[in-house]
């Protein structure tokens, strides 16, 4: 399973010109981390056959974060485009994990992963 993640936005319009991103393949991760990632993806409810990715909403939300998640598994690609007002509740633990991993990677591991 491959996961690609990108986020930007928020009050500070952060990461617009240098999106905060994280990419991982369960083949390359240590066993425990691979299992964790796989479990979070499965529990997120995102891998539903035939589910269409969310369109970028044109609502009235301001200063929210935007997230893009791509999961490649079982020969299929699942692609999602959320903001803070449209993330499905079940997918939050996955997003929190990916956000922490992305921050950890960019800061060279100087911030602890949660």
């Amino acid at each position, binding site marked *: 399973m491959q996961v690609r993640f990108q986020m930007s936005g928020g009050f500070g319009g952060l990461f617009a010109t240098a999106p905060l991103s994280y990419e991982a393949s369960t083949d390359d991760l240590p066993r425990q981390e691979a299992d964790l990632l796989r479990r979070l993806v499965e529990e997120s409810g995102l891998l539903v056959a035939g589910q269409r990715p969310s369109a970028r909403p044109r609502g*009235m939300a301001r200063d929210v974060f935007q997230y893009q998640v791509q999961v490649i598994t079982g020969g299929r690609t699942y692609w999602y485009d959320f903001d803070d007002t449209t993330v499905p509740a079940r997918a939050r633990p996955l997003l929190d994990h990916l956000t922490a991993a992305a921050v950890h990677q960019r800061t060279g591991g100087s911030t602890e992963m949660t």
Partner: protein
Amino acid sequence: MIRQPAHVSHTRHRARCDFIPPFIIDNLARDDREEIRAAVLATAHQAMASRTRRSELEVTIDQVAASAGLAEISAAPGPTGEANREVYDCHQKWEKRVELVRREGADPTGDADADSAYDLVGVTRDFLKKELGRNSIDNQGLDLNLNVHYGVKYMNAAWDGEEMVFGDGDGKLFIGFARSLDVIAHELGHGVTQYTANLNYEGQSGALNEHFSDVLGTVVTQAHNGETAATADWLIGDEIMGPDLQGEALRSMRAPGTAYDDPLMRTDPQPAHMDLYYRGDADNRGVHINSGIPNRAFYLVATELGDTLAAGRLWYQGLQRLTPTADFVTAAEVLVNTARAMTKAGQLPKGAAQIVRSAFSEVGILKLEVAPGVRRYR
């Protein structure tokens, strides 16, 4: 239960400005009689109260407002609410309104975020009333709901179209979103914009949307802190930077592009001039990026006037004359015209319109007109 603004359902005015040819409206707007001009503007503004109609009226309203020469626009009167605050503790859930912890007038809870949010929203609400004559964000006393401890280490504060949410941050990168007045006033500013110009949140209109929120943020903060244009730091988001971030703030209105340089956030991307206008797709085509350009213009006007509050009042009047698709040039011209009208009404000093034009010229949005043969010196 979410209270809908009371005016939306019943003030669809039957005077259909969009059926009257623009040139007639324009002529009426220039009528010598002030009551005629005011009536035209009020009618156009009533129709603006319905968001779906605004795009149809954009040229008309801009003509009317700019040519009416009216110093002040007041929103259509209607039934009023009391702008009551309700603070909800979301207990680190990704849900709003989990537990109501403080109603308007109730005693402090002892939770720093809940009590700060309550106080600072009150400061902003009271500023809107006292200094701008505005009754809450919709000018009709809309209640203000605040959600603190929203989400898990949510490094953000946001306006979701109806109410505010505040995360806890992670204590290292970002902290105290609910305890920062400029953040709170910025978010409430999005509400004010939603009920006035309703600037589309992308491209230049979106950058203006962000800009007006930063303006309200800094104007309210400076007034509350007793600062002046000369003594203020002109920073946005300086109070939410955690110990692990390298930078003064998230934005500087005085010097866009200098607020931070950090391994996580990289470098502040804001331009201070149209020459460095961001043309990419990120951030809804740069709404938080290109806002730096009009932010710098506001800083110049406030500094040149020596009066941030006066500049804030001018900007508030200008906001009410804008429409959802306004771009930088339109906003600048509306602000120049509004400054002229406010000067005539004795609300701004002589020369204010020239100060505004000069500021927008300095950031590359407008050109200054120079008489032939006159050499300009810097």
